[in-house]
């Protein structure tokens, strides 16, 4: 059984190199309410290290990562801090 993730906002950063996806994701997360979820799509392999680190540093929760090879999708729940 899989848990349904209710996505609040999506952001597609395909074709953009790190750290621009991190920066843009942080801008979206800043305006979300705690508990709301961002679905983030990246194509820069560096995102696999940068996005989890960003979520950890911001106090957000990385609910799920889907590494599809050329594309990586992250679901990030905004934290309370």
């Amino acid at each position, binding site marked *: 059984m899989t848990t349904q993730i209710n996505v609040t906002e999506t952001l597609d950063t395909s074709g953009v190199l790190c750290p621009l996806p991190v920066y843009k994701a942080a801008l979206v997360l800043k305006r979300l309410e705690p508990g709301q979820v961002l679905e983030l799509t990246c194509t820069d392999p560096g995102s696999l290290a940068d996005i989890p*680190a*960003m979520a950890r540093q911001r106090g957000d929760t990385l609910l799920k990562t889907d590494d599809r090879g050329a594309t990586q999708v992250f679901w990030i729940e905004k934290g309370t801090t």
Partner: protein
Amino acid sequence: MISRLETPQHLTTDRRAQRYNDIRELLPDPDHPTPLVRVNRVAAETDLYLKLEWLNPFGSIKDRAAAYLLDGLQTRGELDGRELVEASSGNTAIALAALAALIGTKLTVTIPDGVPEEKKVVLRMLGAEVWETPDDMCPVDHPKDGAIALARSLAASENGTRYVMPNQYENPDNVLAHYETTGPEIWRQTEGRVRAFFAGFGTCGTLTGVGRYLKEQDPTIKIVAIEPQQGHRLPGLKSFGEAKQPGNLDWSVIDDVVQVDDQPAYDMTKRLWREEGLMVGPSTGAIVHAATGYGLDPDEIAVGVSPDSGLKYTSFFAELLGEEGLPQA
């Protein structure tokens, strides 16, 4: 009698009369240098002069680099139809924003954490878009170089068609600006008697350009670099313990490196305001602190750079002062 319908004759630029037809004509060159002013009280044991770069038209030493960077991009046709993006702690961006606006180009600036609010507001007043970059944004790279990485990332986005990045850290036009203007100005203003030159590590355009020029005149002139501590609060300066060394740094012209902590730099900045009437920014305080403690020969002329004024750091100074200067109950 001239008819009122005729086009009025504009006055021509006359530098002796301090009359200009365009703000860019105030950019310095060896015939029209920025002032060199002696530091008389806080450096009584030395013959130290400060080059007041805040009297440049856009308020800092970066006016020189920005003009050369933009000129290079235009000459090479790299600017055609594109916007500018640059990483800057403020001063280069301010000069670039002003110069870009004059040619109808927009600037996006990625600015590191810790830059005072005043600079960000100035940039926005000039029409620039300001992307504040957290120090820890790029955890897998040099943390303090997040602004540079972000600017590079923007420049590479949209297949490089939207933005061009002058890249003051790697672009030799930055060095050339100081080799062709700042260096010759100092040489002429000191009548060839300068024996030591002090400037901070940053983009290293000043140190390399001035150092190279002065060493060509006399290889025994000492070039001294000032480096702040890690996690410092001296905008414009770089600690290479936490930031990558720029391509524009030429170690062959550097004779010595002096480490300066924040507190003595700010203490010296305050003294320069109060004892010399020099309303300088904190990086000047760091440079003068290093020069006064260097053991200079009092009979030999030393020159330090004063990169910018303190008026863009008043929020930092308010913290420094605390309750000082306020009436006590």
